[in-house]
């Protein structure tokens, strides 16, 4: 601190004062945590202490006489903030703020600043005392706290959303550890989240391993794509439909109980199949019998008019009736759906192929049954697989003009795979795959399977079905 000029004091008093001032100066100079220095009335630096050196980075000899605006950012200097601080301090006695200051090396720090105006006895402004503290650590802590608060608020909001949606939701990290389970998922699984969080998903639900959801969820993780699944859940015993989305952390999985919808679909399907059977029966018992009779009756007249003009005229009519009856017979046979639930699966497939061989007049239908394909009844799965094969064969027979149609069933990694390939016209990407394909897809989904159709104009069509079989089905 610059010695003040206390003009009228006595020598002894002056000596005491000087001693006191000297002690004070040493004290101030030694303070390490505060930059304490003085400015002249114009803002030029006149003293410097250890704290100032440590905080601002300048040695006393290089900073003495410099203007204190050197500690301010360019923006502050431009708007005249340093001078403004001095003016305020001069008018009000002191000025206090927290703001960014610049160190010698150009780096900035958060400073708590107190500027006090110093007056002499005549009321003349002698300069300013400036005390600066580095509060960067505190500021950073505050900022961290603020961000944490923000994050907490965002998380709360997300949690609110995830808890209020009617879908079950859970999230796993890249190691399949459950990181979130919403209340709906707790309900559907029948397990509290406290028991699940931090645990390995597949260890908690081993009965799901190998199921269609398992495959689709793993695929989402491995390939980083969104996947969908519909299946009967071995965990809840309900039909569930859901989606798995890759996330930064791992996966987000939404699913819902669709048992009611499935029941409605199943009922509708049964109605449709009953209807098909009824139509087949009606056509068989009515028009087909009448056609057969008409063909025979005309045949009889022909027999009786052998070698006459009448016989010749009847020839075309008989041919037309026969042709009509044959076409009608094909329709009836296509409509007749076998119930393969209780029959050995391979037998059902063989019978489907046999039936189509009879109906396919211009195409050769081959069948290949791979090793390990179950010979036991497969229930609903067997029925749906055989019907998909039937529908694919009907399409190939009726619309493709194929010469060769091959049917294959085989096992692959616990999946039953069925494939129907023809060398017919194909339908390309523009062609309409038609109602038949929609129905095949529906059947595939019904048993938790997946259907793929590949077709190119002029290159035939391939229908591939994959159905997961429960483990332990005997061959």
């Amino acid at each position: 601190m610059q010695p003040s000029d206390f003009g009228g004091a006595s020598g002894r008093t002056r000596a005491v004062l000087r001693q006191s001032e000297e002690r004070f100066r040493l004290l101030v100079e030694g303070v390490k945590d505060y930059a304490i220095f003085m400015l002249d009335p114009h803002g030029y630096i006149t003293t410097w202490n250890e704290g100032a050196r440590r905080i601002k980075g300048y040695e006393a000899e290089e900073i003495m006489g410099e203007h204190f605006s050197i500690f301010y950012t360019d923006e502050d200097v431009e708007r005249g903030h340093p001078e403004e601080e001095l003016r305020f301090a001069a008018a009000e006695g002191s000025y206090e703020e927290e703001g960014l200051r610049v160190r010698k090396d150009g780096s900035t720090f958060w400073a708590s600043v107190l500027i006090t105006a110093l007056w002499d006895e005549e009321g003349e402004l002698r300069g300013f005392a400036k005390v600066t503290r580095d509060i960067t650590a505190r500021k950073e802590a505050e900022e961290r706290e603020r961000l944490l608060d923000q994050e907490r608020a965002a998380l709360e909001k997300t949690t609110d959303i995830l808890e209020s949606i009617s879908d079950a939701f859970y999230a796993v990290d890249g190691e399949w550890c459950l990181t979130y389970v919403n209340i709906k998922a707790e309900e559907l699984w029948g397990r509290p989240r406290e028991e699940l969080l931090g645990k390995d998903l597949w260890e908690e639900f081993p009965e799901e391993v190998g199921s269609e959801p398992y495959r689709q969820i793993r695929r989402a993780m491995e390939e980083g794509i969104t996947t969908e699944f519909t299946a009967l859940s071995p965990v809840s015993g309900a039909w569930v439909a859901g989606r798995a989305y890759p996330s930064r952390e791992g996966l987000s999985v939404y699913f819902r109980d669709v048992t009611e919808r499935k029941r409605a679909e199943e009922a509708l399907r049964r109605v449709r199949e009953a209807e098909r059977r009824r139509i087949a029966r009606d056509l068989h018992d009515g028009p087909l019998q009448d056609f057969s009779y008409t063909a025979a009756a005309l045949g009889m007249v022909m027999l009786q008019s052998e070698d006459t003009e009448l016989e010749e005229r009847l020839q075309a009519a008989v041919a037309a009736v026969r042709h009509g009856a044959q076409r009608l017979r094909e329709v009836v046979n296509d409509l007749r759906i076998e119930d393969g639930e209780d029959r050995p699966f391979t037998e059902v497939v063989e019978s489907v192929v046999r039936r189509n061989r009879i109906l396919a007049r211009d195409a050769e239908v081959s069948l290949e049954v791979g090793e390990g394909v179950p010979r036991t009844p497969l229930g609903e799965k067997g029925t749906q697989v055989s019907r998909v094969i039937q529908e694919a064969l009907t399409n190939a027979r009726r619309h493709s003009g194929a010469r060769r149609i091959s049917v294959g069933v085989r096992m692959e990694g616990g999946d039953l795979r069925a494939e129907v390939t023809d060398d017919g016209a194909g339908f390309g990407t523009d062609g309409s795959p038609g109602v038949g394909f929609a129905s095949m897809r529906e059947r595939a989904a019904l048993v938790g399977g997946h259907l793929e159709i590949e077709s190119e104009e002029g290159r035939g069509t391939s229908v591939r079905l994959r159905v997961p079989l429960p483990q332990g089905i005997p061959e």
Partner: protein
Amino acid sequence: MTAEAQARRTRVMIVEDHADFRDLMGVLLSNQPDIKLIAQAGSLAEARDQAARLELDVAVLDLGLPDGSGADLISDLRRASGDVRVMVLSASLDPEGIEKARRAGADEILDKLTPLDEVLATVRRLGNA
């Protein structure tokens, strides 16, 4: 017709629920000097009833009868007339039905659309076997 020829005539029963078709077959068979149509039935029950009382050489069966499949009749016919031959006439050619008829012991299975001379030839062949 001599007594001998009379005795050698093939005795045939038609089981068919389509009345017009049955009549037509009846006329066709009755017109053949070597064939004798001795019974006609429109259902399994009628056919069983008649078969029990008659000696048959050939039975012409429809598969889709109102009270069941003609295939179910085959064993009953065999019980009544040991060496009866069975010809199935099917409109649908439904593989399951045909399989069933074959397993039950049908000797011939013909499409109902088969020309009549072929039908007659088959009846004769079975009758002479």
